[in-house]
């Protein structure tokens, strides 16, 4: 997930920006959201999802477009994300950067993000100021002013973003390579931010076409969570957005990779301090019940300090600095189940990999005991309750489910988790978490050396099977 630059204060979490919303995917759902959430569709096709929550005098207002890097094409990757940046460059009515300034002058916070599956914009502000963000969004949905000089400058910003996130971060770099290897047909092959060379190829015409294709009521939806009355909110929304021309709903089906029939391995040699190891197994998403079993597996492996990876690899064997597992439940197309680890200095990568594999094999061989399964279910349930404390997270949850399938299936999450049995876990681990179904990547650290410039935009694209 690319968060387009709020005042970013150093200290990036090492690793993998795609996973910003991990916590959420492990915590989603509640009985009764169906009753509390109100959904309607305006006559121009704009879907509206509202959740009243008066715990603070605030509203978080989101507008999400059904477009992300999966809706791009070879040679023009990164287009959706560049467009996200350009959305702040003004309309006939507002000048460049007026959007952020106006929201901030109203005491609000705002940002935007692009993923493989969506582009989202939001502002969180005092409830009595919500009309301000609505006016701005209703204006820039149809009226964006895309100018060449803004585009040329903003493309430079995005290239700086890519250098910061990927080029100079060996772990992110490896993740990008891993995904390009695991996915050969489906658009998850390329990174959200795009290949450096593609960023150079994108033109203003490409942006205009992308904007006209996707930025319309038929390809977007609104989510508001916070301190409001839905009747009043809805009439505001109708008044503000109701007259925007509907546009055409775009086909969202994308080609899928055929089943994987053998392990793929890649390595990356780059200046780095410590190795990094990642395995990505091809798995189904929430459209398949096995995805929920994988949620439980992910928690068994890495939910809290009593989890198997932490207990075994960090505490007992003292092999790794950190180890983690992550499922891709809310991915629009089926994606990967990740297991990764950073070895401690001096620990052989092979030994770490063996230890990770032992934990995977254990899931296949031994049924999980009753108490451990109960523990994991408790954790998933409580983290759902905690996540409701934040208006922003509630809105993210509704919107991410809406993109992946429908916000209405949030209510299935906990019941489906509760139903998972030790036998399910063994079966699913045996079916998906096997070497033939994975891509394994290793970062081989080269000693840091001063001096030469690496070739510009060395995104390693030449290594990728087309």
């Amino acid at each position, binding site marked *: 997930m690319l968060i387009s630059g709020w005042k*970013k204060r150093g200290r990036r979490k090492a690793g993998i920006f795609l996973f910003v919303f991990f916590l959420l995917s492990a915590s989603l759902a509640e009985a009764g959201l169906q009753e509390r959430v109100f959904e309607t569709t305006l006559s121009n096709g704009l879907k509206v999802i509202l959740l009243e929550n008066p715990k603070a005098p605030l509203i978080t207002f989101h507008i999400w477009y059904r477009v992300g890097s999966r809706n791009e094409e070879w040679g023009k990757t990164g287009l959706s994300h560049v467009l996200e940046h350009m959305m702040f460059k003004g309309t006939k009515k507002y000048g460049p950067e007026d959007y952020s*300034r106006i929201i901030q002058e109203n005491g609000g916070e705002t940002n935007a993000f692009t993923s493989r599956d969506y582009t989202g914009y939001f502002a969180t502000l005092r409830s009595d100021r919500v009309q301000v963000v609505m006016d701005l969004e209703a204006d820039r949905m149809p009226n964006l002013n895309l100018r060449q000089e803004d585009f040329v400058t903003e493309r430079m*910003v995005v*290239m700086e973003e890519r250098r910061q996130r990927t080029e100079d971060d060996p772990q992110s770099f490896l993740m990008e390579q891993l995904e390009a290897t695991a996915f050969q047909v489906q658009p998850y092959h390329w990174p959200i931010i795009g290949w450096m060379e593609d960023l150079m190829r994108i033109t203003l015409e490409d942006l205009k076409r992308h904007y006209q294709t996707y930025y319309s009521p038929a390809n977007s939806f609104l989510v508001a969570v916070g301190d409001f009355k839905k009747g009043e909110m809805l009439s505001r929304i109708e008044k503000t957005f109701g007259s925007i021309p509907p546009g055409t709903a775009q086909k969202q089906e994308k080609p899928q990779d055929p089943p994987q029939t053998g392990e793929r391995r890649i390595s990356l040699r780059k200046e780095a301090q410590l190795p990094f190891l990642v395995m990505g197994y091809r798995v189904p998403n929430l459209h398949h019940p096995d995805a929920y079993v994988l949620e439980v597996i992910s928690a068994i492996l890495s939910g809290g300090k009593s989890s198997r990876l*932490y207990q075994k690899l960090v505490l007992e064997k003292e092999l790794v600095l950190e180890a983690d597992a992550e499922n891709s439940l809310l991915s629009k197309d089926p994606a990967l189940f990740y297991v990764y680890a950073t070895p401690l200095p001096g620990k052989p990568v092979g030994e770490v990999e063996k230890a990770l594999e032992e934990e995977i094999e254990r899931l296949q061989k031994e049924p999980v005991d009753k108490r451990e399964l109960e523990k994991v279910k408790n954790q998933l349930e409580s983290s759902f309750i905690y996540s*409701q404390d934040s208006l922003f997270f509630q809105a993210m949850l509704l919107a991410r489910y809406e993109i992946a399938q429908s916000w209405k299936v949030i209510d299935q999450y906990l019941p489906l988790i509760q139903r998972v049995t030790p036998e399910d876990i063994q079966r699913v681990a045996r079916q998906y978490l096997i070497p033939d179904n994975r891509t394994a990547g290793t970062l081989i650290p080269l000693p840091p050396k001063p001096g030469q410039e690496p070739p510009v935009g060395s995104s390693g694209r030449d290594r990728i099977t087309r």
Partner: protein
Amino acid sequence: MIRLLRFSAVVGFFLLSFGSMGETLLAMPLVQRMTLSNQMVLLTSEERSLPFVTLQLLIDAGSRRDSVGEEGAAYLTAKGLLLGTAKRGEKAINEELDFMGASLNSSPGRDYATLNLRVLKKDLEKGLDLFLEVLTQPTFPQEEVKREVQKTLAAIQAAEDQPEDVAEKAFKENLFLSGPYRHPIEGTKKSLPLITRETLDRLYKKYYHPNHSILAVVGDITREEVKTKLVPRFEKWPKGKTSDAPVQNVFAKGPKTVKIDRMLTQASIILGHAGVSRENPDYYALTVMNYILGGGGFSSRLMEEVRNKRGLAYSVYSFFEPGKLPGSFQVGLQTKNVSAREAISLAREEMKRIQKEPVSEKEIEGARRYLIGSFPMRMDTQGKLVNFLLQVEYYGLGWDYPGKYSRLIQSVTREEVLRVARKYLQPENCILVVVANQKMADIE
């Protein structure tokens, strides 16, 4: 339109609240403050819309307490609380927490350390017992402490791959000639191997006392439960001797340039100098000034000049980090190697410009409106609220702070901004750190 937030007393055994009056009522959480018999300050705020409770204890034992040669001791002491108690080993602690779906973390900072518990209402008593056990009966077992030292060393090594982190450490090392803010919170490669369980035990006995601590409790907990469940448990924690030897930071005088050569595509740059402490009366004027200069996200001058107009950076910002003692002021940015010189000079120009002429009426009004208007967002989750409450108490901001804050910000004038910019910014005397491919960056 600016609201008047007025402080008002509430009936009850403790008196404080963030009352609020204005054209419309702005909901501010109600807060009770009391001092226990062992002098621990207890702040509570009830909010029962969700069935869980967040507790955060502030212990006045941040990394500023580290002795010379023992950098990282305060960090490891805080981490060490969770490594085992007189009754339970680390594994049992982890197991019990995860089974409740609770989280218990210690987070060691520069001024103070915190211990944070989030627990479902139904498990509150069990959670409290565990919280008090790790707080009052830690054993700092030798093997586990050794492992924690090794992990910290590895994390320090891994951080070498984060250019911004490398720049930050070099900046601090060069800005502070000596003093408690000079070293990284987690210690250094040199200091950590010398730290043992005895070091932690010593630091613990010296600083982990109720009379050095503040507890904030928010969420689904009633006044009655505070009285019957919390107070008796925490009052058993015996008072200790306070020992607060005053220590000062000694700042280097710039200008000075530090270049670190790496195979990178981007230069990570920090430009800065001495800042202020939290109690400095100019804090509010500085907040407004910095918002306009580089703290105000996309509305700041640095963002406008470096990113929006020229596309030279994805992130560029400035900040003060005021603590109990004066901290630093920093401008930070990342730009491709060959743009480093231009970006540095732009940043310096902006520091000079805000010293030369008053900011515009539009800019100052925008800053005031954001700072005042976004105030409620500082406490809109349990996690944010406990932090906010602890800071108000720890830095002595006063319990009329939410009301006072808007007045203080509102009263900052353009002349004040000019005055503090001239007084505190030193564009010509900066410590400049550049982590980059130096051949490409070509810094003088």
